[in-house]
C-alpha cells in the first residue's frame, strides 16, 4: 500500500495514481487528474465481484445463496450470509424465531469485532501514528498490535462457535443454523468476550487521541434502524434526509449506474444524490440506541450525536467494537435456548428482500424465486459501490488544498483518506509477487 506513484503530464496537467492493490494491477486504484492547479477528475477504480456472483446464482437452488455469496468477501462472509438468508426467507414468507435471530445477531457481532479490529489496528492506526505499516507499528508498539489481535481473536471465537469456522462460516442456512451452540461453548465465549471488553474500551481511548485533519462532508447518510438497539442484522432503511422505507423498497429509492472507469456500479438516492453508508451513517442515525457503556465511551472520545469528519470514523469503529462485545455478552446471558437449530422453509414463487449492516455499510440482496425454489434473478448492492461517489467527492475536496505536498506524501495522505471508508475492494487474490534473483 506504500507503492503509490505520481507523475507529471504535459502542459499544466498532472496526474496522481494510487495503486491500492499493487498485486493485481487495475483491480482497484485511485486516479486524480490535476489541470492548471485544480483537481479536474477523481476516479476510484474498483473491481467488484458481486456482478459475477449475481450471474452465478441464477438457476441455483434457493438454499444456496448463503454459502455462495459468503465467498464474495473473506472479511465479511457473515454479512453476505445474513442478507441472503433474510431475502430468501422474505420471498418464502418465513419468519425465523427470535432465539435464532438472536444467534444471528451474535454471529454478526463476531464479524464486526473481527473486521473492525483488523481495520483499526492493522490498516488505519499506522496511518495516524506515522508508521508505513502495521509491521513497523508492531516493532515499536507491540502492545497495541497485540491488543488488536486479541480483539480480532475474540471476534473469531464467535465466528468459530456460531459459524462453524472463522473464515467462510459453514453453519448458516436458510431458516437458521445446521447446529446450535452448546451451553459449554456459549460459556467459553462469554469468558473470551468479558476479557475483550477492556481492550475494546482501551481502543476507543487510543484512537480518540489521534490527530485528525480538519475535514468534513455533508453527504446524506443512509443506514438501517431497528425497533430496538443499534442496527446490525435488521431494521428499516432510514436516511438523514428523513426517508424511511423497508428493504423491499430499496430498488425504488436507490438507482445504480455504470461508469466508464469502474467495474462497480455507482449508487445514488433517487437518481441524483450521492449518499454514504457505513459506521458514520449508522452512528449519526442511531447513536441514541447505543448501550450506556458504548455511548459513554463515544462521548468521552469527543463524539457528539453525529460525526461528519470521515477521519474520525476510526473512533466510531472503536465505539462499535465496544457495543458489539457488550451486545454479544448480553445475547449470551439472555439467550433462552431454541427448540430446533432451524425452521423449515418451503420455496414459493416470488421476490424477497434483505438488508443488513456489514461492517463497512448496508448490504442489500434481492432474489426472485420460481415455484420450485430455483433462483431466476439476484441483485446484490454492496456498501462500497454505494459509497463510491461519496468517496470520490471526499477525495476531490481533500486533494485540492494539498496539491503542494510532495507526491509521495500526497499519495500517503490519499491512501489514509481512502481507508476512512474501509472499502471492500481488495477481496480478491492473495498470491505473492516474488522477486527471483538468478546468480
Amino acid at each position, binding site marked *: 500500500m506504500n507503492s503509490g506513484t505520481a507523475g507529471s503530464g504535459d502542459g499544466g496537467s498532472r496526474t496522481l495514481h494510487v495503486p491500492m492493490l499493487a*498485486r493485481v494491477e487495475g483491480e482497484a486504484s485511485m486516479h486524480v487528474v490535476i489541470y492548471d492547479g485544480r483537481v479536474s477528475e477523481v476516479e476510484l477504480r474498483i473491481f467488484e465481484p458481486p456482478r459475477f456472483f449475481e450471474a452465478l446464482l441464477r438457476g441455483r437452488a434457493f438454499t444456496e445463496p448463503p454459502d455462495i455469496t459468503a*465467498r464474495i468477501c473473506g472479511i465479511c462472509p457473515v454479512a453476505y450470509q445474513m442478507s441472503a438468508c433474510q431475502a430468501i426467507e422474505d420471498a418464502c414468507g418465513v419468519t425465523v424465531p427470535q432465539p435464532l435471530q438472536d444467534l444471528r445477531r451474535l454471529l454478526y457481532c463476531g464479524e464486526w469485532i473481527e473486521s473492525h479490529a*483488523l481495520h483499526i489496528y492493522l490498516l488505519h492506526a499506522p496511518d495516524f501514528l506515522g508508521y508505513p505499516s502495521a509491521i513497523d507499528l508492531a516493532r515499536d508498539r507491540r502492545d497495541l*498490535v497485540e491488543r488488536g489481535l486479541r480483539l*480480532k481473536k475474540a471476534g473469531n471465537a464467535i465466528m468459530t462457535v456460531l459459524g462453524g469456522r472463522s*473464515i467462510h462460516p459453514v453453519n448458516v442456512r436458510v431458516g437458521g443454523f445446521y447446529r446450535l451452540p452448546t451451553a459449554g461453548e456459549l460459556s467459553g465465549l462469554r469468558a473470551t468476550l468479558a476479557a475483550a471488553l477492556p481492550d475494546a474500551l482501551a481502543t476507543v481511548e487510543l484512537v480518540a487521541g489521534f490527530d485528525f485533519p480538519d475535514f468534513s462532508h455533508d453527504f446524506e447518510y443512509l443506514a438501517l434502524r431497528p425497533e430496538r438497539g443499534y442496527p446490525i442484522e435488521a431494521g428499516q432503511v432510514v436516511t438523514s434526509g428523513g426517508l424511511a422505507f423497508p428493504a423491499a423498497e430499496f430498488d425504488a429509492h436507490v438507482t445504480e449506474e455504470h461508469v466508464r472507469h469502474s467495474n462497480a456500479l455507482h449508487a445514488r438516492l433517487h437518481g441524483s444524490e450521492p449518499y454514504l453508508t457505513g459506521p458514520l451513517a449508522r452512528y449519526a442515525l442511531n447513536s441514541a440506541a447505543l448501550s450506556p457503556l458504548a455511548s459513554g465511551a463515544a462521548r468521552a472520545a469527543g463524539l457528539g450525536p453525529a460525526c461528519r469528519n470521515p477521519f474520525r470514523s476510526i473512533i466510531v469503529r472503536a465505539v462499535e467494537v465496544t457495543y458489539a462485545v457488550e451486545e454479544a455478552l448480553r445475547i449470551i446471558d439472555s439467550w433462552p435456548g431454541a427448540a430446533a437449530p432451524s425452521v423449515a422453509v418451503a420455496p414459493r414463487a416470488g421476490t424477497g428482500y434483505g438488508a443488513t449492516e456489514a461492517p463497512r455499510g448496508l448490504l442489500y440482496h434481492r432474489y426472485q424465486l420460481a415455484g420450485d425454489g430455483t433462483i431466476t434473478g439476484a441483485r446484490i448492492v454492496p456498501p462500497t459501490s454505494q459509497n463510491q461517489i461519496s468517496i470520490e467527492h471526499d477525495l476531490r475536496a481533500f486533494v485540492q488544498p494539498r496539491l503542494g505536498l510532495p507526491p509521495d506524501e500526497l499519495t500517503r495522505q490519499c491512501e489514509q483518506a481512502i481507508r476512512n471508508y474501509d472499502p471492500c475492494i481488495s477481496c*480478491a*487474490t492473495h*498470491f*505473492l509477487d516474488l522477486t527471483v534473483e538468478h546468480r
Partner: protein
Amino acid sequence: MTAGNHPAGVLVIGIGRRDRGDDAVGPAVAERAMDLVPPGVTVLEQAEPAGLIDAWAGAGLVVIADAVRSGQRPGTVHVLHACHGPLPVRTGAGGTHGLGLAEVIELGRALQRLPPQLVVVGVEAQRFGLGEPMSPQVRACVELAAKAVAEVVRAG
C-alpha cells in the same frame, strides 16, 4: 479439511480463493497433501492470510501452500524458508481491506509469533480471473507441489 490434530504440531495451510483461477492452487495443493503427509498432520484451508498468526499458534512446523508470481514458467514450484528472513517479495501490499501473506509473516516476526519452522511452497501462477478454473499448466503441477509439501513435513 483436517486430517487430524497432530501432537507434534505440524500444520499445512492452503491459502487462496477457489473461484479465482490459479489462486485456487494453494487450497488444491493442501488438499492433495492430505493424502501424502503422515496421519495426524493438520491441514487447513484459508482464504485470507490475516488469521494466520492465530492459526499457527502452538505449531512447531507450518507449511503454507500459496500461488506466487515471479515471471517464471506457470507451475514452477518454489520452496521458501521464511524463518530466517523476509520472503523475496516485490510488493506484499495488502490493499485497503486486508493483509498479504508476506505482510502477515513479517507481522508475526515483529511480534515474535512465528512458528519455529515456517516454509512456503509457492506455485507460479498466471491467471486470477473471477470464476476462472485453474490454468492447465498450474493444475498439472499440483501433484509436484503437494509432494514438495510432504517432503518438507517429512524432513521437518
